[in-house]
Every structure is written in structure tokens, then in C-alpha cells.
């Protein structure tokens, strides 16, 4: 049993454990959930040192052959850690906020962690799809049961958007299985690289699009983003945090893991279109964020803008672009997660998300204001804080590919400073209304505990990238090699059909 299996097994066991705890003992339930998630996090801390050797591959279903095959590489490593870190934080911030149906809430959070970790580990297409959908169910309930007024609309929209996108991905996976005879990611990649599995240009394009639409909805890429503001605004804080920080990364992760290496020609052919949409998303998201009166909606639209950067980096097909994209995925997870947490803190105090209801918060709550400022600056991309590294790399990669792209994308960076600082100014400076003075107090110990790890990471990732970036780069080099290998193969004459290489030939991540 590898470490990865443990990381999957513990949240699932925790989920089952919580189901059997007495319903009314909220304290025990919360503590149990926190302990389970902390155990998972502690276990996952060993992963960066051992991830290359941790893999499990056993047959799950014999006919058609489906494997329980999990593994990690530089691409998934930090995303797994992000999930394990944010789950205990999500539990902490829900500690007093969730007062109804407590047991189900925390149980669903652990089930969500199980699904998310699984998505990033799965190396079998079918297994990936299973985790992809399994993570949908707890999030649906988190939004729909514990959300705000329009929660039901938001939850159903979230579920249906994702479901409609992913059924076509399922069709594409089955098609690939029928052609390649396996669901194993490594084997499919190997047979594509060796030319044993030669897809025609049309096939490649359709398969690429089927995968791409599923991922683009999840990212979300303009114009498929409309579910996101609804889901974010209506979700409880913990739901928003998990959604923004981890769940959106499922989409960009999927693009990197599947779309690029498996269908490189189609990916390159579509790149100009996709990049155009990404840039529209960057600017549009930023402009809409600028005029939002609601803080959560503002952060949600800023996510659309930030994720546009990630997609831009991915489809620049350069080493820097990919590195920046992955780094930006992590950064967004940390800084936007932190923003949602802080907005949640404000909501718990003032019971409003409207910016106009605040003002001068820095007077009653100086520490809250300080942490918020650091997070805001990180989100804007101030040097020495994390987002700067990612944005810089993405812009450099984009400039290498096409200078115009970088120019337009840079507008988004400027706009992000506008909407974030403006919101900060209106919320924390100026006159302190009576309502704010009466209700807003500074951070409690529990609230500190939830936010400090993220602030530390903002500084760490912004000033000492060597901890994180080299493994990411190595994984991205592998992906880019695949893109090139397959391109070379495609020009050659069609090779013999039945020569399929052994599954072990390509081990991802090395």
C-alpha cells in the first residue's frame, strides 16, 4: 500500500466514521473531521520526498480492463498537497459558521477531499472520470444545502454544467479505449508516441474537443464561466474555498495532463482560438470584477481572470508558459482561497457581502486588515509574493509564442490592481460606520490558525521558488516532449497497427 492509497483511504474512512457519529454532538463531529484532515495533511507532507516511487496499479474491473492506477509527478504533487492543506483550513473556517446539519457538512467535506485527491492521482482514464464525477456530488450538496438564498439554482447549475461537459469526455475516453485497448494513461501515451495508435487529424480534433469542453467548463474559460459566479456567491465559505482553490484546478490540470500530451496536433491547431478566449476571459473577468458591488462576486470574477492566465500559459506551448501556468494554479489556490476565507470572516461579522456596508474596517480590526492587505497584494502580483512569479512566467512564455498575446494579457495585471485595491480601500479605509464598529472585531485564534499557513505560503512561494518550481518544470518538460514526439510521429507514414509497446515504457514524471 503506497502513500497515495493512504491519502485516499483516510478521508474516505473519515467520511464513513462521521456518518456513524451521533448527530447532536457537534463538537465531536467537528473535532473528528479536523483530526482526520490533519492526519491526511501530515501524511501528505511526506509526499514531496517520495512521490516518484509511490504508485499502485491493481486491476479493479477485469472486463473491460480498468485499473486502480494512481501515481504522482511534479504536476500533480503540489495540487495534492494543496487539497490536503485546504481541507483542514476549510474545516476550521466552518467551525462556528456551520450550525445546522453539522454532521453531513463535515462528512461531505471529507468526501470532497477524497474525490479531489483522487482526480489528481488517477492514471487510468476511467478512474479519473470516476473521481471527477464523485467530487461533484459533495460540492453540489455543500452549495445547495448550506448556501445562501439562491443556493438551489446555483447548485443545480453547477451540477448540470459539469455533467453536460463531462459526458462527452466519457464518450471520448471510451472511444480511445476501443482504439487503444486500454484505459491506462501511460500505455495510451506510449502507443501514441510510438505510433502504434495513430489517430487521424479529424479523430484527434474531435477527441481533443470532447476533453477540452469538459475541462474548459471546469476552469472556467470564457464564455463557459457563467456557473462560477453563481456557485461562488451562493456557496458557504468553505465551499467557495474548496471550489476556487482546488476544484477549478481540475480543469487546468486536465488540460495539461490529457489534452496536450494526447492530442498535441489538435491542441496546437486550436491554440490561437483558445488563447483568444483566455485573453477575453482575463480582461472581461477583470472588468466585471471592477464593477461588482458584492465582494464574493468580485473575487469570483477575479478567478475567471486569473484562470485565463493559466490557460494562456498552457497554450503558449513554451516551458516558461507551462511552468507559470502550473505555478499560477497553485498561487490562485492559495491567494484566492485566502481571499474567500477573509471575505467569509467579514461576512460572519457583518452578515453582508456588499462593499457599501463596510468601510474603515482597519480601525476595529487592524490585524484582519493587515492580513487582507498582504493577500490583496499577493493577488495583484506584487514582487516577492507568489502571484508575481506565476504571472511573470506566463507573460514571458506568452511573449515568446506571440508578443501580442502578452500585451493584451498584461492589461489584466493592471486591471487586477485596480479592482483589488479599490475594493480594499472602500472596505478598510475611510469612515467607520456604526454597524461596522459594533460588529467587527479582530481575528480570533481559530481564524488566525486558518489563515496563517496561507500567508506563509504566499511569501515562501514568492521569494523562494526553488522549493516548488524545479519538479513542476521537470513534469512540464515531459509534457512538451510528448507534444513534440507526437508531432514528429504524425508526419511519418502510418506504422504497423498491432505493435503496441509495453505499458511500462513511459513513466510519467521522469
Amino acid at each position, binding site marked *: 500500500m503506497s502513500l497515495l492509497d493512504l491519502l485516499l483511504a483516510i478521508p474516505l474512512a473519515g467520511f464513513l466514521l462521521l456518518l456513524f457519529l451521533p*448527530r447532536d454532538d457537534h463538537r465531536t463531529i467537528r473535532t473528528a473531521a479536523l483530526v482526520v484532515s490533519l492526519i491526511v495533511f501530515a501524511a501528505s507532507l511526506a509526499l514531496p520526498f517520495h512521490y516518484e516511487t509511490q504508485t499502485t496499479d491493481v486491476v479493479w*474491473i*477485469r*472486463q*473491460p480492463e480498468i485499473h486502480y492506477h494512481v501515481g504522482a509527478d511534479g504536476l500533480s504533487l503540489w495540487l495534492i498537497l494543496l487539497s490536503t492543506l485546504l481541507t483542514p483550513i476549510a474545516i476550521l473556517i466552518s467551525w462556528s459558521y456551520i450550525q445546522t*446539519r453539522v454532521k*453531513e457538512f463535515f462528512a461531505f467535506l471529507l468526501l470532497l477531499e477524497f474525490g479531489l485527491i483522487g482526480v489528481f492521482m488517477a492514471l487510468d482514464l*476511467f478512474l479519473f*472520470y*470516476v473521481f471527477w*464525477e*464523485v467530487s*461533484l*456530488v459533495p460540492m*453540489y*450538496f455543500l452549495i*445547495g*444545502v448550506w448556501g445562501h438564498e439562491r*443556493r*438551489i439554482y446555483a*447548485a*443545480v447549475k453547477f*451540477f*448540470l454544467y459539469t*455533467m*453536460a461537459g463531462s*459526458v*462527452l469526455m*466519457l*464518450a471520448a475516453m*471510451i*472511444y480511445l*479505449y*476501443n482504439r487503444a485497448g486500454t484505459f491506462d494513461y501511460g500505455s495510451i501515451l506510449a502507443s501514441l508516441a510510438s505510433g502504434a495508435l495513430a489517430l487521424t487529424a479529424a479523430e484527434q480534433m474531435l477527441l481533443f474537443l470532447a476533453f477540452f469542453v469538459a475541462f474548459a467548463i471546469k476552469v472556467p474559460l470564457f464564455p463557459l464561466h457563467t456557473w462560477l459566479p453563481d456557485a461562488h456567491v451562493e456557496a458557504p465559505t468553505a465551499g467557495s474555498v474548496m471550489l476556487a482553490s482546488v476544484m477549478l484546478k481540475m480543469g487546468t490540470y486536465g488540460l495539461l495532463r490529457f489534452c496536450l500530451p494526447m492530442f498535441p496536433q489538435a491542441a496546437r491547431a486550436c491554440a490561437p482560438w483558445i488563447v483568444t478566449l483566455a485573453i477575453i476571459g482575463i480582461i472581461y473577468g477583470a472588468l466585471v470584477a471592477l464593477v461588482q458591488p458584492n465582494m464574493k462576486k468580485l473575487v469570483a470574477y477575479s478567478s475567471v481572470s486569473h484562470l485565463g492566465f493559466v490557460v494562456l500559459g498552457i497554450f503558449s506551448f513554451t516551458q516558461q508558459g507551462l511552468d507559470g501556468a502550473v505555478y499560477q494554479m497553485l498561487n490562485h489556490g492559495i491567494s484566492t482561497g485566502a481571499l474567500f476565507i477573509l471575505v467569509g470572516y467579514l461576512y460572519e461579522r457583518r452578515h453582508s457581502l456588499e462593499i457599501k456596508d463596510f468601510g474603515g474596517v482597519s480601525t476595529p480590526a487592524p490585524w484582519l486588515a493587515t492580513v487582507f492587505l498582504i493577500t490583496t497584494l499577493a493577488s495583484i502580483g506584487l514582487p516577492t509574493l507568489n502571484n508575481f512569479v506565476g504571472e511573470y512566467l506566463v507573460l514571458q512564455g506568452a511573449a515568446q509564442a506571440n508578443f501580442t498575446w502578452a500585451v493584451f494579457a498584461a492589461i489584466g495585471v493592471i486591471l487586477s490592481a485596480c479592482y483589488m485595491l479599490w475594493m480594499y480601500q472602500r472596505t478598510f479605509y475611510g469612515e467607520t460606520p456604526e454597524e461596522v464598529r459594533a460588529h467587527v472585531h479582530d481575528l480570533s485564534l481559530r481564524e488566525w490558525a486558518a489563515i496563517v499557513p496561507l500567508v506563509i505560503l504566499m511569501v515562501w512561494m514568492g521569494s523562494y521558488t526553488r522549493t516548488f518550481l524545479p519538479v513542476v518544470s521537470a513534469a512540464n518538460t515531459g509534457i512538451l516532449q510528448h507534444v513534440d514526439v507526437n508531432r514528429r510521429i504524425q508526419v511519418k507514414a502510418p506504422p504497423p497497427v498491432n505493435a503496441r509497446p509495453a505499458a511500462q515504457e513511459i513513466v510519467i514524471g521522469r
Partner: protein
Amino acid sequence: MDANVPQGLIPSAAELIRFLPEIILTLAGVLIMVLEPLTPPRGKRTLGYLSFAALAAALGASIYAYSMPGPAFSGMLVVDGFSTFFRVLVTAVGLLTVLSSSHFLEREGAEPGEYYALLLFSVMGQCVMVGANELILLFIGLEISSIASYVMTGYLRDDKRANEAALKYFLLGSFATAFLLYGVALIYGATGTTSLIAIRAALASSARPDLLLVAVSAALMFVGFMFKISGAPFQIWAPDVYQGAPTPVAAFLSAGPKAAAFAIFLRVFSSAFGSIGDRWEPLVWFSALLSMTIGNFAALTQSNIKRMLAYSSIAHAGYVLVAMTARSEDGSAAAMFYLGAYALMNIGAFAAVAHFSRKGERYLEINDMAGLGFRQPVPAALFSICILSLIGVPLTAGFFGKFYIFKAALQSNLIWLTVLGLLNSAVGAYYYLRVLVVMYMHEPGEATTSLQPITAGLGAALWITAAGTLALGIFPSMVLEFAIKAAQ
């Protein structure tokens, strides 16, 4: 034409064992009819136990009979993997129906005796259907099953809706069986035989019979079968019948008779008419798409949960038809697996409805279930598992069944049907989600707060179906491999 006809007149021991499930069910059914007037009113429950035991014995006998597979009664009946699979399925459906009926009958003040006897006869008819290797026997099995289920539909004779449902079901059903019988007559005219194997041989032989006659006969049988599986465009009866029938009977109709009808549909069209498959494939293709689309889109607007499940059962018949369109062994195996999965999840859903509806089936609106999720967490969670399976969320039987169906379809290059079918299943998600929304996201209403705890029988049915749904979703191999072997 058959060398062992003379000896066949006196059945051998092996042949009797192959027919054992039907024998058990018939004897038990007759016994219950005889005992009914003799049991005091307070002892009527015994009849339920008796029928449960009989069905369990029949299930065991079906498995035992598979230890000596082969034909019986001059090749009229055959015990093979395929028939064993369906015999086990229909007897299991019978068991679950008994579990969910016992309390229901007491609640509605209905006489249990005839009900159980009819149920046993209906299951017996289905066993005959799925084992039939010859068109006359197949027709007899179908009639036994159908007539019993017509009566069961109208069993609550003071209920207007049930009366309407029974009459509608009976009239349209007889009409459909007439079509089938015409088809049988014509194929007999064309080939001079009613044995499926002989028909197949005749169609494949060089002296091919008149193709027009064969085509007309196949088309007539197609109509008959489509009616029985409630596939479009012969689905009109299903919503009214499912809504009007007592809830456990609706569960039974959607699982048992439907599975058996699909079994004979599969057997007749893939074995007897297999060689003209390219002729009937477009028909099934079209019906599959039509069933999925009509079922799903009509279900979208339903507010009555039984009617919603009825429309959705049309859609699910469409998915199984997709598997038939594939015309491959994988397709047949996928259809078999899906029918098993569907029986589990749908009986579970209907059991939950039976629990909730109360005396006289007062609470059948989806909105009545508001807040059930936190008022009665365990039944609601089990119900939710069935609903998630009907949507097709992974780790449930419904997902794996759909996955396997569309895999078989893609293997046969039915790309458009696959894409449209998958999109259809996304549409389906919407109306199933509404049940979850109401149960978990609305505040409890009057209907929910007055709900009593679930009774043992219904609880058992819900637990078994939900656990089975999960088990088949996580470990599908055990059933799937048998289905693949049986489909060969």
C-alpha cells in the same frame, strides 16, 4: 425434425430440474390460493412469508438448474447462461416486490392472498418467457405474466386511477400481444417452424424463405415487444399505468416484466432474426433515440413522482435499446447488466415512494418530500443512492451500466447514438436532481413531519437495493462477467 421427440414425451429428471423454478412457483401459487380462505385474518402475513420462501426457493432452483444446462421438453425450453441470468433477475425482483408489498397491502386494506398468488404466477410466466426457445412457449409465458400483472395493476379495486390503469394496460396489452401472435403466425408460415434455432437456420439457408413475409413478421413482433418494454413510439400506456398501479406493483412492472420482455426481445432478434440484423437495426436505432428523448424530456415537467419515474423508465428502456442496436455480444451483455442495475435502483426508488406516500397514496408530489433528507436521514440516504444511480453517477450500478452500454455502442460505430444518448443522460440528471433538491434543500413540510418510521419490509427492500446498487457500481465484475459469458 427433432430426433428425440419420442423420448421427449416423458420428461427426464434433468429436464424436470431445468423446469424446477417454474414448478415451485406454480405449486406455491396454487397453494396460496387454497390456503387463502383457510387462514384467519390475522394470519394473512404467513401468506407473504410463504410466497417469499417460494421465490427464494425458485431463485435457488434457477441457480441449481444452471449446473445442468441444456434443452428441455423437445427443445422448447432451454437453460443456458442467458436464461439463468434473467430467471435469477425476475425471481429477485419478485422477492423485493414481496418485501415492499407486505406493509403496503395491510395499509391499504387489500387482501394479500390473491395478490401473492398473482405475483408468483407473473414471475413464473417471466421465467417461462426467458427460458423459452420457441415462439409458442414464449407467447404462453408472456400471456401468463401479462394477465397476472393486469390484475395486479387494478388490485386496489376502489381506486379509480388503478381501475383506469388496469383497463388501459389490459386493452393495449392485449392489442400488442395480438401483434406478436400475428408475427409468430407469419413466421411459421414462412419457415414452417416456431423454434428459434430452426428459424435462424431457415433464414441462413440457401433456400431462403420469402423475405417480405419474414420482414412483416419481424415488424409485427417488434411492435409487440416494443409495447412490452414501453419503448417509443409504443410507450403511451406506461405513465398512466405506472401512476395508477399500486406503488409496489409499479416497481414490479418496471423491473420484472420489462426485463423478461427485453430478454425475449434480445433472444428472438439476435438469434432468430440475427441474420437480417442490418434490416432491423435502423428501427431499433430510431426507437432507442426516440425513447430516450421522449422519456427524458417528458419527465422534466412532471410533478408527480410516480409519473416522473414512469417517464424515466421509458428513457431507461431507450438506453437498453442502444445496447441492442450495437448487435454485438458486448451489447447484449451490456443490456443484461443494465436491466439488472435498473431493477435494483428503480425498485429502491419505488420502495421509498411507497414508504412516503401513506394510506391511499396521498403524498405523491415531488414537493411533498421537502426536508425528508434530514427528517429521516437513513431512508433518504438510501433513496438518494438509487437516485444518483439513476442519474448515472460513478460508483453506482447505473453509471457502470450506462458506461458499458455506450462502450458497446461505440464499438459498433454508433457514434451519433452514443453522443445523443449521453447528452440525454445529462438531461435526465435535471429531473432526478429535483428530488434531491427537494429532499435536502427545502424546509420540511406537513407531509414530511407527519411521516412514521419506515417499516421493516420496506426498509429491507431499500437497504438491499441501495447496497446492491453500490456493490454493482464498485465491483461490477461479478455480474458483468457472467453476463458476457451468457451473451455468447
